[in-house]
């Protein structure tokens, strides 16, 4: 049940690599400092770019003077907002009018809208010299009023960030499923929660963004050595903006130092680098520093939940809820407003709630733009559903465990269609919860809670789903004009002249071990060991065959990536067996098996053709091949397309994702009532992502997702002052948990194979922010056990907030009201 990955190391039997924790192919280079990260790429004569950034959160640009900078020795040149406005078109916007009128350029044109926004780029012969020159650029600003609090963004007289749009609203709409009004009337009780706040943070990959951009004047081709995690979408943004065909943009990545969604929206910087490479006729090297990344790259979505009403029966059964959600996407939408629909993949969380109404609005503010951040948009919705469970349990004096079990969707009900048409594929939520509770020894913890020794002890639960493999048709529920639907991913595999098997992926890995898991799947199909399969590292859009949705995001590799690998490997297997069958006396492919690098006749294993011979025949010695085998290339490409349909735009109804991995976390916290400091005394994460190809890699993803969420719950926040100044702009003030801050994380799992993927796998890398929910739940539990009526109303709970809840419980208690009817 809970064996750790490392106990699962076993000798590999050829053909049975899947399901084994084999050490990763990637590690060899990475433990020796031989990885190639974007900032490691160099070229002769390259110039280093430094961006001059906005000192104000909101200001009109009165004038820009680069003459002193350009006059400095060693400076190669500059790029100004005027040049950008002339040489490029605004990046396209996904939303509907008037939000679609927002104009987003590579540099701030006319106005700056958040601290750190790039205004001018300077290129010089050294990093230091570029910075020297940047200090000489003179920009005159006329400060404007600032919007920091999303709740004020729609007030009359509030400054409007984007003149063209005439409003700060990016997108707004109602989602109404079932009959929430009826449910609220029929329910024994109605629990009302005035306001909850999901805080702003991000997973802050340790490697910041970087690029080495080259321009070939002969062919008009740009080559971007970078760490963008979704080059396909970057090209779609950049091509039209730069007015060049997409194939002129070659994206090359090898090792990426973590991305977590934060490297999906760097196209603005990459575009500036392209313009500079073309203008200055030399390679451009861009290094983003930590403070740059914090102030002006990508945060996670901040979200407010207002006027929540939950229909509850006396026994704790919940019939549904309604809520007004307000999402803050910062100064520019970029990947947004997709976050206005992505949450709907998990509308009711893990619960059987049939009546749900969400009035969703997204606004811009003078803060860093957001990008999809691990758990993207679902995490916020799942935090809401988990808060609802705990607040209802607390208010009705029920056991949070019982409330969850009573409302969880039952395993026998799966596959289960949610009120908005998503199909939860498989799982056993109650069982996962039991395992989690066993891991933290729930009963013992409850007992300890009673004999309080000065510390307040709380037990918390976080139940989440990681919805993987998007149906991009969901975008049409936001904007019916968008021409996106379904999903796809590509893999190609070939048998080379000397019998080497070479696999290339359409994905863009950032530490998830794709080279390893892909080789495990292909190896079993081809009857070889994973060591015998070379998976090309990284992604090069010129040599890795890819499709429209290729990339590594949205918890989908285990389905899209591996199904593509499986499809390609099966095609290659069939070709090898057809070829060998022909060569070995006309055997039917079905009578040929692949084993240990040979294609053998089942009826006579002595009759065997080595892969090397197959490769040689097709690649180098093919004149004698009979006509019926001439179509064989031993070079196979497979595009996996998941079985999706178009959602119903009117009802905002349909299956938005293919698989749903379960995460149930449980923890015990100890609160120091004098200081409000929260310590995690015990922590358990139980995961069910269906069939696990490499359990050790899966467990690693669970650890990572858990700690991102622990950081978000206790340490990490992007806090702004009233002027839009970011107060946590580096790792000194933005505290990322280190090894001493964290507990030993216990893990457990069950495997409920997905009926919707042929491998039974489910995407699971993002998790659902379960630790945020579990820690909020535990703090709530500790407060109530201590007799405090306080309500945990924020996802971020630093010591002072916890202390305040203890000091002035009425402040948060007033947010909740229960009526009996």
């Amino acid at each position, binding site marked *: 049940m809970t064996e750790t990955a490392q106990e699962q190391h076993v000798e590999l039997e050829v053909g049975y690599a899947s399901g084994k924790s084999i050490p990763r192919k990637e590690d060899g280079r990475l433990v020796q400092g031989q990885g190639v990260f974007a900032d490691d790429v160099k070229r002769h004569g390259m110039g280093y770019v430094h961006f001059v950034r906005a000192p104000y959160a909101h200001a009109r640009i009165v004038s820009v003077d680069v003459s002193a900078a350009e006059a400095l020795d060693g400076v190669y040149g500059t790029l100004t907002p005027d040049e950008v406005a002339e040489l490029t078109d605004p990046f396209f916007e996904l939303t509907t009018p008037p939000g679609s009128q927002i104009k987003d350029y590579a540099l701030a044109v006319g106005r700056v809208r958040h601290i750190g926004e790039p205004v001018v780029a300077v290129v010089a012969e050294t990093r230091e010299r570029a*910075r020297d020159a940047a200090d000489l650029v003179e920009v005159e600003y006329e400060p404007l009023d600032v919007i920091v609090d999303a709740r004020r963004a729609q007030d009359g007289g509030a400054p409007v960030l984007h003149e063209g749009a005439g409003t700060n609203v990016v997108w707004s709409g109602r989602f109404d499923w079932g009959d929430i009004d009826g449910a609220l009337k029929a329910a024994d009780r109605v629990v009302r929660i005035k306001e909850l706040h999901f805080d702003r943070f991000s997973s802050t990959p340790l490697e910041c963004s970087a690029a080495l951009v080259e321009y070939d004047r002969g062919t008009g081709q740009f080559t971007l050595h970078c760490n963008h995690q979704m080059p396909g979408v970057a090209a779609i943004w950049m091509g039209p903006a730069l007015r060049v065909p997409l194939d002129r943009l070659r994206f090359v990545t090898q090792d990426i130092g973590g991305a977590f969604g934060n490297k999906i929206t760097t196209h603005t910087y990459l575009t500036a680098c392209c313009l500079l490479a073309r203008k200055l006729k030399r390679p451009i090297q861009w290094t983003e520093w930590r403070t740059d990344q914090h102030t002006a790259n990508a945060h996670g979505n901040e979200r407010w939940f207002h006027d929540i009403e939950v229909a509850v029966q006396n026994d704790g059964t919940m019939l549904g809820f309604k809520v007004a959600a307000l999402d803050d996407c910062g100064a520019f939408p970029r990947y947004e407003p997709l976050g206005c629909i992505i949450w709907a993949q998990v509308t009711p969380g893990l619960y059987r709630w049939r009546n749900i109404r969400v009035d969703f609005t997204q606004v811009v503010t003078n803060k860093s733009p957001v990008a999809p951040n691990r758990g993207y948009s679902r995490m916020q919705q799942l935090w809401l559903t988990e808060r609802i469970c705990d607040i209802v349990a607390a208010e009705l004096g029920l056991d949070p465990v019982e409330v969850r079990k009573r409302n969880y969707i039952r395993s026998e009900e799966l596959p289960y269609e949610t009120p908005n048409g998503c199909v939860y594929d498989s799982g056993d939520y109650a069982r996962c919860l039991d395992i989690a509770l066993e891991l933290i020894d729930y009963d013992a913890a409850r007992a300890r809670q009673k004999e309080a020794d000065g510390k307040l002890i709380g037990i918390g639960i976080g139940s989440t789903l990681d919805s993987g493999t998007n149906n991009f048709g969901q975008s049409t529920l936001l904007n019916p004009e968008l021409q996106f639907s379904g999903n796809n991913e590509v893999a190609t595999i070939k048998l080379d002249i000397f019998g080497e098997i070479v696999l290339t992926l359409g994905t863009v890995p950032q530490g998830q071990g794709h080279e390893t898991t892909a080789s495990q799947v292909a190896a079993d199909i081809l009857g070889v060991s994973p060591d015998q399969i070379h998976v090309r590292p990284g992604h090069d859009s010129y040599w890795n065959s890819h499709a429209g949705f290729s990339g590594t995001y949205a918890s989908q590799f285990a389905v899209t990536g591996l199904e593509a690998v499986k499809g390609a490997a099966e095609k290659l297997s069939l070709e090898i067996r057809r070829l060998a069958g022909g060569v070995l006396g006309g055997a039917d492919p079905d009578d040929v098996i692949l084993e240990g690098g040979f294609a053998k006749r089942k009826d006579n294993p002595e009759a065997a053709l080595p892969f090397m011979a197959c490769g040689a025949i097709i690649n180098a010695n093919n004149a004698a091949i009979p006509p019926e085998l001439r179509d064989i290339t031993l070079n196979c490409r497979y595009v996996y397309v998941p079985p999706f349909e178009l959602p119903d735009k009117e009802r905002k109804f349909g299956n938005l994702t293919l698989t749903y991995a379960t995460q149930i976390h449980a923890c015990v916290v100890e609160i120091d009532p004098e200081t409000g400091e929260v310590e995690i005394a015990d922590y358990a994460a139980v995961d069910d992502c269906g069939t696990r190809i490499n359990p050790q890699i899966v467990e690693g993803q669970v650890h990572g997702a858990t700690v991102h969420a622990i950081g978000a719950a206790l*340490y990490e926040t992007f806090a702004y002052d009233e002027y839009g100044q970011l107060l946590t702009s580096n790792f000194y003030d933005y*505290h990322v948990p*280190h090894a001493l801050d964290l507990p030993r994380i216990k893990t457990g799992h069950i495997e409920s194979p997905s009926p919707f993927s042929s491998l039974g796998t489910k995407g699971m890398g993002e998790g659902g922010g379960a630790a945020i929910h579990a820690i909020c739940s535990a703090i709530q539990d500790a407060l109530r056990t201590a007799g405090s009526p306080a309500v945990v109303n924020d996802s971020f709970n630093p010591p002072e907030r916890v202390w305040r809840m203890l000091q002035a419980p009425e402040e948060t208690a007033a947010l909740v009201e229960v009526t009996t009817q």
Partner: protein
Amino acid sequence: MLLRELDYARPDSVDEAVKLLAAREDARALAGGQSLVNVMKTRVAAPELVVDLNRIDALRGISSNGGALEIGAMTTYAAIVDSPEVAAARPILAEVARTIADVQVRNRGTIGGNICSSDPTNHFPPLLAALGAELVIRSADGERTVSTDEFFEGVFATAVHPGELLTAVRIPAKGDARDGWASATLGRDGTGIVSVAATVSAGNARIAIGCVAATPVIVTASADETAVEDAVGAAGLDPPSDVHASADYRRHLAAVLAARAVRDAS
């Protein structure tokens, strides 16, 4: 990460260092560099001459004389943590040094740099203030010794004026005193939110509170927890608010932690 242009000098002796520091108005001594270099990365600090003290052996080392300690200004936190003299004479110095930042920083960061940067969140200002340490300052005109009260002039401002150099920290013998420490930090062993050091002798506590003002705030009280909390409450603290803690919260923590520091000392 990209510093302003600068000159670099690496003297072998204190005299040479003092000469260099006096010679140019914009000269700055570089000790462990675990603060200064980071500030120079932002270009907020941009000394034209950096005088690297790391090769001046005379500034390193710990000696004990009848329980009184003399610690060279360039002695690293790591050296203090490992010092048998410190363990014997004033172990609190090692206990606190062990919680500063991390291993790499403790390998470079020095006690002299720590107090000369006079950052309110640093550990040593309140600790040395509680212990009644004396600071030895050298200049071309000779040597002078100041108390911590005189030494800490403000945020980033100390009695080490242009052309001067802190050479040593003197800690009086412990006698019958007991030392204690308590702090609230950003993450475990992280940046101080409020730090309190206490020395208890003959039933009286001398308490130094860090992160609640520009310089350590000294409070004395009889060494019982309620008396201490009352004394801190009556000290009229006016702490700063920042993203990590409001003034109210810091004021509250000061009292709570002072009591704990005294408990730790008893």
